[in-house]
C-alpha cells in the first residue's frame, strides 16, 4: 500500500503497543475476531438492559390501574426499550457477526481497514454509554424511539433526556457508518481469488446490501438530528411551528431513514438463516440467484415506502394509494425468500438442533409478522390499526420472532467457531421452546387488544375496557421469555468455560469459515484459499482430496498492528457529545482531541517498518 511517511508538525510520543496483554490487548486490538466478540458481548449486555426495561413495562401493564412506575418514567421506559433494542441490540449484534464472519467467509486475513473497525466498536460503546447514562443524569428520553419533532423541541420537552437521545444516536450513527464503509470496501476488494460476487455466501451478500442501505440511510437521520440539535441548542426554527415550520418534516426525514432501517435490521437475520438451513438440510440453498435478487429488490423498495408510517397524517388519497401499492409489492420478494427457504428444507435430511429450531422459528414468526404487515400496508385498514397494540404485535413478530430468533440461531451456529467449544444442546432446545412459546403468548394477544382499540404508549388502562385478561397473560409470558434468555446466558457461559472441544468443521459446513480451526488463528488463513464454485469448501470435501500440508510459516504473515488511536478518537467524540449537552467549551475540547488523534492515526503506518 502506498503510504506517505508524512512529517509530524508536532511530536506525539505515545509509543505503539507491542504485543499487549490483558485489558490493554482488548483496548488496542484491531483483530476483527476480537472486535466481533467485543461487539457481541457489549450488544448482548445492552439487549439485557432493554429486556429489563421491557419487563418493567409489562409489569406495569399486568393489571388495570397499576402504579408500579410513574407515567413519566413509563414514557422513558418505552422510549429507551425501543431505542436500545434497535440501535444497541439488534444492529450491533448483527455487526458482531459482520466483524467475525465476513473476513472468514471471503477468505481474507482481516477487514480492509482494521483500525477503522476498532474505531467503530469504541464509538458504538461510547454512544451506548451516552444513551444509557441518561438514566442517571436527570432522566431518559421520553418521546418514543422516533422522537417526533416538534414534541422533542425545548418548548414541549425542556429536559435533558432528548439531548442524550440526539447525541447518542449521532455517535452511534458515526459508528455504524464507519463499519459500513469498511464492510462495503472489504467485500468488494478483499475477496479470495475466484470468489466472484455470485459465489459469495448469502450472509456476505446480505451484509453487503445492509451496508449499502446503512451508508445511504444514516446521513438522512443525521441531518434530522442535527436540525433538531440546532433547534434545541441554538434556537433555530426547523421545527418551530410558531415560525411556520411544518411538523411533518421530521416524520418524513425520520421515516426516509426509518424504513431502510427496518431492512438493515432484518436482512442480516435473513442472511444468517440462509447459512443455517442449507447446512443442516444437507442441501445447497434453493434458488441462490433469486435470493440475492430478492434481497436487492427489498433494499431498493425500502426507499419507496416510508410514508406508510404516516398514513393517518393526512397526506391525501393519492399519496396513501401509492404507498399502499409500493408497500404491498415488498411482500413479493419477501415471499420469494420464504419459499426458497422452504425449498431448501424440502426433501432435505434435516437435523433439528438448536440453530435449526431457531431458524424455523424465525420463518414462522416472521411470516406472521409479515402477514400483519400486509394488513396495515393497506392505508384504509391502517386507520384502525395505527398506534394500537396491533402494531406492537406486528413489530415484535418481525423484530423479536424475526431478527432476534435469527441472531440466536446464528450465535448457536457459530458458537463453536467463536469459542472452539460446543454449546449444550439440551439447554439450547429448552431455551428455544421457552422463548418460542413465551413470545407467542406475549405478542399474539396484542393483536386482539389492539383490534379492541388499546392504544400504544399508555401507562395504564381502565378496568372497564376489557383488556385486563390478555394484558395479564402477556405480562406473565414476558417472564417466560426472560427465563428462556436466562437459560441462554447460562448455556453460553457454561459452554464457553467448560463445553466439549469443537473441531474446525463441526457441522460439515459449506463456507470458508469452516475450513480453518476453531477458534481461527490470528491470521485466519495460512494460505489464501482459491475458490472455484459456490459452496466451494463443501465441493472440495466431496472430492476427498488429501489436504496438502501448507508450507507457509505463520510468522511470515504480516498483520496490522494494535493501535491506541481508534479508541482515543472515539473517546474524543464522547467528550464532545457530553459537551453538546452540558457545556460547549467541553465540546470544543472533545473536538480538538478528535482532530489531534485523527492526525496521529493517519500518520501512524499500518505496520511499523521494523516490526514482524
Amino acid at each position, binding site marked *: 500500500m502506498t503510504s*506517505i511517511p508524512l512529517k509530524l508538525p508536532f511530536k506525539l510520543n505515545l509509543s505503539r503497543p507491542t504485543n499487549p496483554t490483558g485489558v490493554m490487548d482488548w483496548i488496542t486490538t484491531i483483530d476483527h475476531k476480537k472486535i466481533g466478540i467485543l461487539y457481541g458481548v457489549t450488544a448482548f449486555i445492552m439487549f439485557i438492559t432493554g429486556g429489563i426495561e421491557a419487563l418493567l413495562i409489562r409489569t406495569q401493564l399486568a393489571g388495570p390501574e397499576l402504579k408500579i412506575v410513574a407515567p413519566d418514567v413509563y414514557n422513558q421506559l418505552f422510549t429507551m426499550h425501543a431505542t436500545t433494542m434497535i440501535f444497541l441490540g439488534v444492529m450491533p449484534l448483527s455487526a458482531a457477526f459482520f466483524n467475525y464472519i465476513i473476513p472468514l467467509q471471503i477468505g481474507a486475513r482481516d477487514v480492509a481497514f482494521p483500525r477503522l473497525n476498532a474505531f467503530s466498536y469504541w464509538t458504538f460503546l461510547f454512544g451506548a454509554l451516552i444513551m444509557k447514562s441518561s438514566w442517571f443524569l436527570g432522566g431518559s428520553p421520553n418521546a418514543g424511539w422516533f422522537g417526533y419533532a416538534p414534541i422533542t423541541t425545548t418548548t414541549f420537552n425542556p429536559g435533558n433526556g432528548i439531548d442524550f437521545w440526539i447525541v447518542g444516536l449521532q455517535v452511534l450513527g458515526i459508528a455504524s457508518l464507519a463499519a459500513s*464503509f469498511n464492510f462495503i*470496501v472489504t467485500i468488494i*476488494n*478483499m475477496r479470495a481469488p475466484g470468489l466472484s460476487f455470485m459465489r459469495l455466501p448469502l450472509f456476505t451478500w446480505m451484509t453487503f446490501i445492509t451496508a449499502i442501505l446503512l451508508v*445511504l440511510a444514516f446521513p438522512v437521520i443525521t*441531518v434530522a438530528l442535527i436540525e433538531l440539535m440546532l433547534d434545541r441548542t441554538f434556537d*433555530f426554527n*426547523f421545527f418551530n411551528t410558531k*415560525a411556520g415550520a411544518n411538523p411533518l418534516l421530521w416524520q418524513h426525514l425520520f421515516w426516509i431513514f426509518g424504513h431502510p432501517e427496518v431492512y438493515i435490521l432484518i436482512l442480516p437475520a435473513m442472511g444468517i438463516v440462509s447459512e443455517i438451513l442449507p447446512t443442516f438440510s444437507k442441501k445447497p440453498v434453493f434458488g441462490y440467484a433469486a435470493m440475492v435478487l430478492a434481497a436487492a429488490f427489498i433494499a431498493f423498495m425500502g426507499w419507496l415506502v416510508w410514508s406508510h408510517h404516516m398514513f393517518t397524517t393526512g397526506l391525501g388519497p393519492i399519496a396513501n394509494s401509492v404507498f399502499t401499492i409500493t408497500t404491498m409489492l415488498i411482500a413479493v420478494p419477501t415471499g420469494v425468500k420464504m419459499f426458497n427457504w422452504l425449498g431448501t428444507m424440502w426433501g432435505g435430511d434435516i437435523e433439528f438442533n438448536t440453530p435449526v429450531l431457531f431458524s424455523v422459528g424465525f420463518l414462522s414468526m416472521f411470516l406472521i409478522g409479515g402477514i400483519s404487515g400486509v394488513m396495515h400496508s393497506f392505508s384504509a385498514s391502517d386507520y384502525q390499526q395505527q398506534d394500537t397494540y396491533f402494531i406492537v404485535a406486528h413489530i415484535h413478530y418481525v423484530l423479536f420472532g424475526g431478527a432476534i430468533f435469527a441472531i440466536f440461531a446464528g450465535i448457536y451456529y457459530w458458537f463453536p467457531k467463536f469459542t472452539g467449544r460446543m454449546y449444550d444442546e439440551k439447554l439450547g432446545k429448552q431455551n428455544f421452546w421457552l422463548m418460542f412459546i413465551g413470545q407467542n403468548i406475549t405478542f399474539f394477544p396484542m393483536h386482539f387488544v389492539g383490534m379492541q382499540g388499546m392504544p400504544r404508549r399508555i401507562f395504564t388502562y381502565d378496568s372497564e375496557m376489557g383488556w385486563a385478561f390478555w394484558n395479564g397473560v402477556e405480562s406473565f409470558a414476558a417472564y417466560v421469555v426472560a427465563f428462556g434468555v436466562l437459560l441462554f446466558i447460562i448455556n453460553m457461559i457454561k459452554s464457553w468455560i467448560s463445553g466439549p472441544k469443537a473441531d474446525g468443521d463441526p457441522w460439515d459446513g459449506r463456507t470458508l469459515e469452516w475450513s480453518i480451526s476453531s477458534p481461527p488463528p490470528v491470521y485466519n488463513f495460512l494460505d489464501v484459499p482459491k475458490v472455484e464454485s459456490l459452496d466451494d469448501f463443501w465441493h472440495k470435501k466431496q472430492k476427498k482430496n488429501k489436504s496438502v500440508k501448507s508450507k507457509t510459516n505463520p510468522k511470515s504473515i504480516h498483520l496490522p498492528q494494535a493501535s491506541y488511536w481508534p479508541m482515543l478518537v472515539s473517546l474524543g467524540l464522547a467528550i464532545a457529545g457530553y459537551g453538546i449537552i452540558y457545556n460547549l467549551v467541553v465540546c470544543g475540547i472533545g473536538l480538538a482531541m478528535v482532530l489531534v488523534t485523527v492526525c496521529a492515526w493517519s500518520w501512524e503506518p499500518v505496520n511499523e517498518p521494523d516490526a514482524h
Partner: protein
Amino acid sequence: MSDETTTGIDNRKLLMWVFLGSDCMFFASLIGTYLIYKGTGNLDIGPVDVFDIPTTSVSTFVLLMSSMSMVFAYAYLVRNNINAFRIWMVSTIIMGATFLGFQVFEFSEFYFHYDLSPQTNLFGTTFYALTGTHGLHVTVGVVWLAIIFYSSLFRNSVSAETNLDLDLAALYWHFVDIVWIVIFAVVYLFGTFPGFPS
C-alpha cells in the same frame, strides 16, 4: 496484508467513493429541507432581499477554478514535477480560502446589514444550515490540502509514487465543488430568478 485487491482499485480510493455517496444523501437531506420550507413562514426577508448574485457568481467562479487548479496540481505530481505541483497546490488553497472569505463576508453582510440570523425565520434557518455545512466541508478540504502542501516541503515525503494521498483529497475537493454548483443553482439562482415559483 497483501497489497493486491480483488478489483485492483486501492481500498482507500474505494472508501472515498463510498463516503462521497453517503455525503450525497447528507446534502440531499439538507437541500430537501431548504426546498420544503422555501417561501413559507415569515417572508419579511427572503432570498430576493439579501442575495447579491454578481458577488456570489465571482466566488462560485473562484471555487470552480480551484478545481481546475487541483487537476493541474495532481497532473504535475504524477509527472513528478514537484515544484509545479507546489505552485498549483498553493493556488488551489488560496482559491479555496478566497471562497471561504467570500462566505464570511456574505454571512456578516446578511447578519449585520440585513439583520438576517438563523433565528429570524425559516429562510434564515435553512439557508445558514445548508451553506454553513458546505462551508465546513470546504474548510476541511482547505486544511487537508494545506497539510499535504506542508508535508511536501520536506524532502521525498510527497512524490509521484504516493499520488493516491493527493488523489483522495482531490476527489473530495471536486465533490465539494459540485455540491456548490447545485446549491448556487437551487438556492441563489432559483431564489432570485423573477417568476420562478417559490
